[in-house]
């Protein structure tokens, strides 16, 4: 052994050089403890305050649907068990760190191997995991149950909004749906009904997630994915695209609106009602002309006809990358627009709908948007310059990658008069 090398560790001892050094370390230690206690108090208070939020519409811990309840029933016990294990482990670690901290004592004799302990520490976590796995697998299978479907809605994601189309079917309501319905932003369903989402995407991978009704499901282009949507009671349930999908991913929201059976039937009847043109010589009539000139290339309004009486068929596939734009036939029956990012209702009117009790919610929702309640500010800003309001790839000089197609709504250079006209026209789309 080289004389320069220290003796073996277990023989090594360390001692403080002087009382002065000890007192300095003691002061530092006390300061550190005080600081650590302060930080711990701040973090603890923050966690406590965060748990007190009342307005949390996307809280997964407030299930309002059968499947969400199944997830909650699984997640809570697992969370409690994992939390208990975590507390025990952290507690033991903290105790060991404190109890055996370096105080200059000799390092104890090092041993290797403790078969009984090692086997126990292998079997115990395995048993815990098996205990978690059994209900987890059962829940996963239960969540994928679709045989009892009562209503089907096709859901298609694109940058950065959701489209919902209701195929012709016998389900959803007595008498079924007799003509296809296309809407966006808000998916309306009958409450306490097993609705099946048949989802896909037009451009990139999106993920449909209404936390209070079910887990999330990716929507992949070229594939079809199923997801159960069921709400126990009438109400409005907020969601958010849960897969990063580009510039305005954070602005790709959606809501599921659950109505009573009668309310849903009324909603369907209204969606399938014939188109009514605005009265002649009104601002809305001018808005119709402006809509045809500026908006109808992308946005479909069912029943809208040109001067020769031919139906106007929007061709968003020739204008936008996703090939689709929201159908605006019944825009003012919804509460939101532009990917459900902004409200069509002013705050007080919005609160009347969102905060309504389940027994009056349906009636409030079916009132739609009236002139008094219209959130003109955001809608005007949107019409004035939509790319300035919502980040989109809508710069006409940078469309090489998409062969000249926009992603999102472009700037239309509308005059204030045109915006007035369009507002008047859209307000009648109920």
């Amino acid at each position, binding site marked *: 052994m080289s004389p320069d090398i220290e003796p073996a560790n277990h023989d090594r001892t360390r001692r403080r050089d002087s009382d002065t050094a000890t007192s300095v370390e003691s002061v530092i230690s006390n300061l550190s403890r005080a600081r650590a206690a302060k930080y711990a108090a701040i973090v603890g208070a923050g966690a406590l305050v965060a748990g007190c939020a009342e307005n949390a519409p996307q809280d997964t811990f407030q299930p309002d649907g059968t499947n969400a309840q199944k997830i909650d029933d699984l997640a809570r016990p697992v969370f409690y068990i994992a939390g208990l294990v975590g507390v025990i482990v952290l507690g033991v670690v903290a105790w060991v760190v404190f109890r055996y901290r370096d105080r200059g004592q000799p390092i104890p004799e090092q041993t290797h191997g403790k078969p009984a302990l090692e086997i126990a520490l292998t079997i115990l976590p395995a048993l815990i995991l098996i205990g978690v796995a059994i209900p987890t697998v059962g829940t996963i299978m239960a969540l994928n149950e*679709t*045989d009892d*479907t009562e*209503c*089907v809605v*096709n859901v*298609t994601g694109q940058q950065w909004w959701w*489209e919902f*189309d209701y*195929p*012709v*079917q*016998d*389900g959803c309501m007595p008498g*079924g749906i007799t003509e*296809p*319905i*296309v809407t966006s932003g808000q998916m309306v369903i009958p409450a306490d009904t097993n609705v*099946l989402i*048949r989802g*896909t995407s*037009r451009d990139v991978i999106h993920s449909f997630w209404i936390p209070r009704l079910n887990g999330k499901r990716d929507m*992949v*282009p*070229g*594939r*079809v*994915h*199923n997801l159960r949507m069921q709400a126990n009671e009438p109400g409005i349930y907020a969601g958010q695209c849960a897969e990063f999908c580009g510039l305005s991913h954070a602005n790709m929201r959606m809501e599921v609106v659950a109505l009573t059976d009668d309310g849903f039937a009324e909603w369907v009847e209204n969606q399938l009602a014939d188109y009514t043109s605005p009265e002649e010589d009104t601002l809305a009539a001018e808005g119709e002309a402006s809509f045809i000139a500026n908006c109808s290339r992308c946005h*479909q309004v*069912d029943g809208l006809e040109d001067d020769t009486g031919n*139906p106007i*068929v929007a*061709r*968003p*596939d*020739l204008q936008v990358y*996703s*090939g*689709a734009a929201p159908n605006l036939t019944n825009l003012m029956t919804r509460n939101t627009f532009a990917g459900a990012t902004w409200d069509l209702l002013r705050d007080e009117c919005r609160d009347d709908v969102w905060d309504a009790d389940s027994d009056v919610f349906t009636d409030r929702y079916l009132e739609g948007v009236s002139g008094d309640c219209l959130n003109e500010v955001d809608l005007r800003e949107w019409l004035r310059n939509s790319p300035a309001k919502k980040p989109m790839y809508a710069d006409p000089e940078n469309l090489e990658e998409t062969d000249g197609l926009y992603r999102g709504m472009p700037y239309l250079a509308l005059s204030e008069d045109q915006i007035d006209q369009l507002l008047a026209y859209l307000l009648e789309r109920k």
Partner: protein
Amino acid sequence: MFTTGSKFLIGASVVALLATVIYGVGQDGVLGTVGLASATIGLICLTVLNFILGDSNVFADDEAPVETTAAAQYAPTGSVWPLGFAFGAVVVAVGLVSYQPIVVIGLVALIATGAEWTVQAWAERASRDGVHNAAVRSRLSNSLEYPIGATIAAGIIIYAFSRVMLWLSKTNTVVAFAVLAAVVLAVGFIIANRPSLKTGAIGGVMTVGVIAVVAAGAVTGVDGERDIPEFETTSIWQEEAILHPEEYAEGAAEGKHPAELICESPEEFPEADEKASETVANKSGTYQVLLNESGTLDFDVPGPKEAGAVGMVIPRSNATNVIFRNNSDEDRRLSLDLGTQTVEIEEGGETEEVEARHQICTTLIEPGGAQLLTVKAGEPSFAYDGEENPNGPDGADGFWFFVPGVESATLEVIVP
């Protein structure tokens, strides 16, 4: 005071810098400017390195340093790098008069051997101790030699193995891969269970294995890949019929293909209808259209179908994958008629717009076979309200799946 070596490096750097500026300003060639700039940067780096190390600061009239400096003490060992450097120069010369890729290979050899030579020469001036000098060299060079060498070796092995896989038939590739995996597993098992095996023996086995793979790759690479057939697609036949109707009719008259549009024909078209079932890759999460033995079409979707569905609803402007399954007794294709489309036909320098049926279809599928069809409808069904679709049931408008030769096989496609 600057030594001769320092002056040379400084001068070379200045000349290279001037050349870069003059060439860059006077010529349009970006590549030449980049090359000269790279040379300038390299020379400046060498100059700076030279100043930092100071190894060349030995002066003929300075007796003491001459006696004590490390540079005056070493005895250079033999080196293979000059040979490699010369080889690289020859390869560059050969490449200049033959093929450009050879120049690149020569340049790579020049740079690699030149760098190794430089490092070795620098390391041998570190001390009078040859072992220490070798360690100095290794410390600098091995950090690059090992990863780069391993990458190149792995690349050669993978490339050679891929040649073998492409040479074998599709079936035999599976067998070969399984056998190779089993051999690797067995060798690994033996090595793990016999820790007393000599390193040389393990290395020998590995070397033999690598040589075998590389040799097999070289032989099969020279022999070429297996015959991978390429087929015409149905859309090409469809476009040909619409865009060049006269040539298409001539081809039909000569018996090269049937006279009808491929999507409306129950007959086989050359090449387009071979081995189509083998191309189905996406087998789940899609719609399915089934041709039943009774001659009717039915559809299926992942999960339950909507009760009372009158047709298959697909989103507008969306690439929807549909698997066609032929459960009938005869070869059949599935076609979709999406109304009309406007097509521009160029003839004699002039462009003419004509209306043509908008159709897509699978190739002819054998009984029990399947093929994927990707459907995308830009227009909604209601755009054709009141306009009869000739491939749908009598008097029906909208979009229709149909099977040429089976009149009863129709299925409405609804695009909302």
